[in-house]
């Protein structure tokens, strides 16, 4: 796993979201709800260093208010979400 992919994995783990296996030719990865496994989106592996944590942190309010994240509510109640 590349450094950037590991960064992305850690950043999303803090919000209650799991980085799945690469979904297409090793470039794009599914984002899954860590609570129920639902597909929440996609992310690519060419983000710049530090960008994943910056983005997830910037979306914290959206997860907390339920405007982003899984309908099951896992990210709302997740400590980092």
């Amino acid at each position, binding site marked *: 796993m590349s450094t950037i992919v590991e960064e992305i994995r850690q950043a999303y783990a803090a919000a209650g979201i799991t980085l799945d296996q690469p979904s297409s030719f090793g470039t794009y990865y599914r984002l899954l709800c860590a609570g129920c496994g639902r597909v929440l989106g996609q*992310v690519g592996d060419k983000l710049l260093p530090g960008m994943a944590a910056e*983005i997830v942190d910037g979306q914290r309010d959206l997860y907390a208010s339920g405007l982003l994240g899984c309908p099951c509510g896992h990210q709302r109640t997740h400590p980092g979400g």
Partner: protein
Amino acid sequence: MSEMDVILEAEERPRTGLWPFWRRAYAKGDPLPAFPAPASRAYRFDEGDPLPEEYKALLIRMLRHEGERAGNKSFLGLMASCLDIAETLFPTREAKVLKAEYLAEELKHAIMFHRLAMGLELDFALRDVPYAHYSFHLPRESWADDALFHFFVDLNGAFHARDWRESSYVPLAKMSATVERDELGHSEMGYHFLQRICESPRGKAVVQHLLGKWYPAALDMFGRSDSPNVPKFIGWGLKSVGNAEIRDAYKTYVDGKLLTLGLDLPDERANRKFL
């Protein structure tokens, strides 16, 4: 009728009341800004002509960034991610059908650029070139994310295709009008989705928040204003405008559309990586 004519003829017959989005946009007049004609028309190369080494290297470099080639598996990967998002995040059948039309049109471009690549360098036609710019890799976690992706990123393609109208490489100049109008239409699809999303205060709040992620990335896509390669591209007639000029024109266009949605414009220097 050529195989490409069959594709083009089929897509001229709209099946949804909205597609193709470019039709309404161009019916109101030219939606894109005019760029100045190239200062020099000293060069003009067609398929099969011997190409100067630097010219060929710059042309391939430009086409690597463009990426829409049938032989580029990373492009197909991006398309697969689009399918996945439509399947899992799109709220209505209408939106999913529009996305299917979008995918079909991008795959048409993949055929067109494949033909161009085959006429340029056979090895390039099968080269896997992952999109290098981070804007193609930003997380899309909502319909709003995907709408912003199309509004901004496909519009970047339309602006570059507009610039190719005067390209010194004849095969690229010939296909530029089709690519430009299609990419403008894809951006309009994203904008249509944004209009729907912004109808609710909740949706508008999400879009406003996500602009902080997409707006700087969109402006960054045009590269550094002082890029040392730009004068070479312009000198060879592969581009007519510099990165700063095309970015400014793009910013004027997107700002107008965002203000029409009632959104606040982000600071143009905030979170930028390539000034």
